[in-house]
């Protein structure tokens, strides 16, 4: 594998202009509305993407095709066809589809055999109409939020099939494959003191980590830095993923992002509870504001106000305050800045190439701060 190794750029290359950075955020199962936790991750990734773009070659990879083969997606599709039949999903809202998803998660797990036709179809680019509907609605939210669309509705298959990815992993000495005795396949980093992590169940179902490896193993050698963005509770999986990818050359950075509790509780989307606080509802509530105010205000709230942790519950009044704050920032912005934009962005990095969205965004707040340049706002926030 040494031929794949990439020498890290010299630390002297301060702007990192030639560095190739891959942003690989965890994707969201297209089966429900976007909750505040989801929004936070999306906005965080978007600011990182656009801020780093001025300093390096950035690739933002977020393919739904890659993660359709997970059980939670395939199982949902099978459940819908079995229980709903020929529903016109184009007429349903995200909340309608989300309610069906909650019902699916409460029902018995389908068998691997029932999922097989869906797994095969997904490999060839087929998407269930319920998920197409959700992704179409999300595309609308992305546009209103000014989020870069990484191809929500595009067929973007991972570079490797499952067997090829497992072979590549075995080549790295990181795979324990017990399919010969009917057993599971594990990611094996026990050499490094990390516990065995299942990738494929004994009955042949790959999990999201297996899907991530199909996508990231072939991409990794082409980058100098890979940034993994994910929910804090998935930290141990991402430690393992980072260890694998680092073996292929790039430096790998983990950016865990805390979820947003609703009324003091961190809830999984499978439990529902997104009424009035999902992306569509929040955007509708903010519809009286100028689009630029909405885009900046949402970023101020979900990045600078909430921060990387997960202590603060979602508070609509603080979001409203952030929108007002955005309005004032936009009014005061525009004075010519003595320092070039790239230098102002480059300050918000440590030993990594990506720009830290929290440091950059919280830098916009604070009463005594000078008004930000319009160049910064337009290239990163609007």
């Amino acid at each position, binding site marked *: 594998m040494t031929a794949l190794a990439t020498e890290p750029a010299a630390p002297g290359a301060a702007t990192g202009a030639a560095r190739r950075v891959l942003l690989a955020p965890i994707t969201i199962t297209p089966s429900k509305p976007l909750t505040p936790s989801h929004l936070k991750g999306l906005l965080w990734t978007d600011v990182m993407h656009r801020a780093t773009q001025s300093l390096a070659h950035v690739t933002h990879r977020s393919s739904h095709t890659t993660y359709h083969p997970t059980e939670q997606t395939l199982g949902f599709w099978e459940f819908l066809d079995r229980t709903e039949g020929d529903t016109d999903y184009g007429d349903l809202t995200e909340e309608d589809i989300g309610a069906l998803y909650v019902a699916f998660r409460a029902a018995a797990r389908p068998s691997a055999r029932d999922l097989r036709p869906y797994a095969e179809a997904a490999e060839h680019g087929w998407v269930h109409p319920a998920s197409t509907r959700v992704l179409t609605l999300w595309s609308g939210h992305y546009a209103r939020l000014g989020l870069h669309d990484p191809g929500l509705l595009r067929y973007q298959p991972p570079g490797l099939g499952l067997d090829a990815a497992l072979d590549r992993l075995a080549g790295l000495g990181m795979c324990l494959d017990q399919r010969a*005795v*009917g057993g599971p396949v594990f990611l094996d980093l*026990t*050499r490094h003191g990390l516990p*065995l992590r299942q990738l494929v169940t004994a009955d042949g179902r790959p999990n999201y980590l297996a899907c991530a490896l199909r996508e990231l193993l072939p991409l990794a050698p082409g980058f100098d830095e890979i940034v993994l963005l994910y929910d804090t509770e998935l930290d141990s999986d991402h430690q393992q993923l980072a260890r694998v990818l680092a073996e292929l050359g790039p430096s790998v950075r983990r950016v865990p992002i805390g979820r947003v509790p609703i009324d003091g509780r961190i809830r999984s989307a499978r439990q529902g509870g997104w009424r009035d606080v999902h992306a569509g509802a929040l955007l509708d509530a903010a519809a009286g504001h100028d689009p630029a105010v909405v885009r900046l205000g949402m970023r101020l709230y979900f990045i600078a106000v909430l921060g990387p942790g997960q202590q603060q519950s979602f508070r609509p009044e603080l979001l409203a305050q952030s929108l007002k704050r955005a309005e004032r920032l936009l009014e005061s912005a525009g004075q010519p800045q003595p320092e070039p934009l790239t230098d102002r962005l480059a300050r918000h990095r440590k030993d990594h190439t990506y720009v830290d969205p929290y440091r950059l965004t919280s830098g916009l707040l604070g009463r005594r701060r000078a008004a930000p340049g319009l160049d910064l706002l337009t290239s990163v926030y609007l």
Partner: protein
Amino acid sequence: MTRTQQLLRERTAVRIRAARPDLADRHDLATPDGLLDAHRHIAQEAGAADDGQILAAVVVRDVDLARWVRDTCVFALGVPPEDAAAWRASFTRTVFLAGNPDHLRDRFVFAHLADDGSAAWTAPGPAAGTTTLRRLLKLFDAPAEVPPAPARHLTVPGEPPPGRVPVTRGLHLATAGCTVAEALVHLNHVIAEAVLDGLIAPGDRLTLHRVPRINPLPGHAVRVRAVPDPRLPGRLRAAAALTDGD
């Protein structure tokens, strides 16, 4: 009751008495109910999360049954007598874990490692001694049925003990409905106990037979592992057996 049922019960009672005379005193092993009670007692003990329980752990990467039998013999032959008694009293309790021994040998001490790295054994000892290893790995999950195969011959490695003439023995496994994971459990108990009792020694020849069902029980069986028959309630069936001659 069939003659085979009678034999299976007697053999099971002998096995319990040898390992745990105290259980033989508490339960009337001559009756089916007493035997069943003793079985429950043993299962309960094994299920209890007791760090002091004596067990061995086997890390399994992949399985070639004949090769694994040979390595199990080598491992059991290496168990020192002082450990053997305690392990015997816990019915040679063994935990099978999925793992790659090559990735673990720097961090953990193994009593025996297969030459090809396919498996590794920890010395029998208190469960607490393998807690870290067990947390790092997962229980060995091998639900595939044991495939039928022709008889395989193997020789137990090592020099025969002075004065002992090597013998030939048959090792029989009932494969119908038996998963690879279960096969390891059954064979492990039969081999380990036979080795500890001096019935298998270096230089001996073993023939591994994989047959759907061990019936009738060969008259020359020297060790039998009997388990409740899942399809015939109240009856035992031979899961594995060791015989004189092949």
